[in-house]
């Protein structure tokens, strides 16, 4: 079993857990990713968390940004732009199996990744982001 700390932002408790628990993976909250993408990024707590991630050699998963062009997720997991549907969709049961092997999905994802600026987050982590990125959580209702 791998241990991941979820929703990591600049909260003090995150630091506490990461310092004392044998964490394998750090999942960056969207707010953390957004902060990192700012040009004037210099928050000390954020720098501490980033240093801790490097020191503990944790893999990192970043929560992706919502692509404005892709539209808003609906309750059924569909969004208005079909070409970018899959990355933003939440996949139920068998559809996840299809997604895992689906080549068309990767093209959709690459477009989304480029537009969300996550490559810049990757640069700041110097390869620690190898574990990957996740799309934003859909808004229901």
């Amino acid at each position: 079993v791998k241990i991941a700390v979820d929703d990591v932002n600049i909260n003090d408790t995150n630091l506490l857990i990461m310092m004392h628990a044998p964490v394998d993976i750090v999942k960056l909250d969207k707010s953390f990713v957004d902060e990192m993408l700012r040009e004037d990024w210099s928050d000390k707590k954020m720098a501490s968390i980033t240093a801790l991630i490097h020191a503990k050699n944790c893999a990192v998963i970043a929560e992706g940004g919502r692509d404005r062009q892709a539209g808003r997720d609906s309750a059924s997991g569909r969004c208005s732009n079909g070409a970018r549907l899959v990355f933003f969709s939440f996949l139920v049961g068998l559809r996840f199996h299809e997604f895992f092997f689906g080549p068309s999905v990767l093209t959709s994802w690459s477009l989304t990744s480029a537009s969300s600026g996550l490559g810049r987050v990757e640069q700041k982590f110097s390869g620690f982001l190898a574990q990957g990125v996740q799309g934003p959580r859909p808004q229901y209702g």
Partner: protein
Amino acid sequence: MEPGRFSFDELLDAFRRQEFFLEYLPTMRLSDGHCVGAEALIRWRRGDRIVPPMDFIPLIENTPLSGLITYRVGELVGRELGPWLRKQEDIQIGINVTTETLGRGSLSAACLTFGLGDILDKLMVEINERGLPDLLAMKALKLATSKSENRRR
């Protein structure tokens, strides 16, 4: 719908009627764009609509339902992905757990019950700052990590 609109009894009834289901949020590896796993997330289908997660998940936390839902997630992952996961390499399915369930053996027992016992290396236990692990939980986490390290060697 505002948080707090559902009573504990309504949520318990929904659990008993098996209205909770899973959605999988894919994780993509930046270096090559491949899907390397997913986070299993609990959802509530109430009649013909999906209840927004933030309308019921905060109500479940720190109630007996939090444990039940954790185990239901494990059960559904085992049923929906178990046989398939067994055939995959380099994949990780994240499951959110309440830290109070860690270190008591119940999570391990649940994984065995749900047919996940032999593919624990493909599971990722997700904790967050809303529940700090206590001493027993920390020992369990350390044990789990050292076991997975030994397997890798």
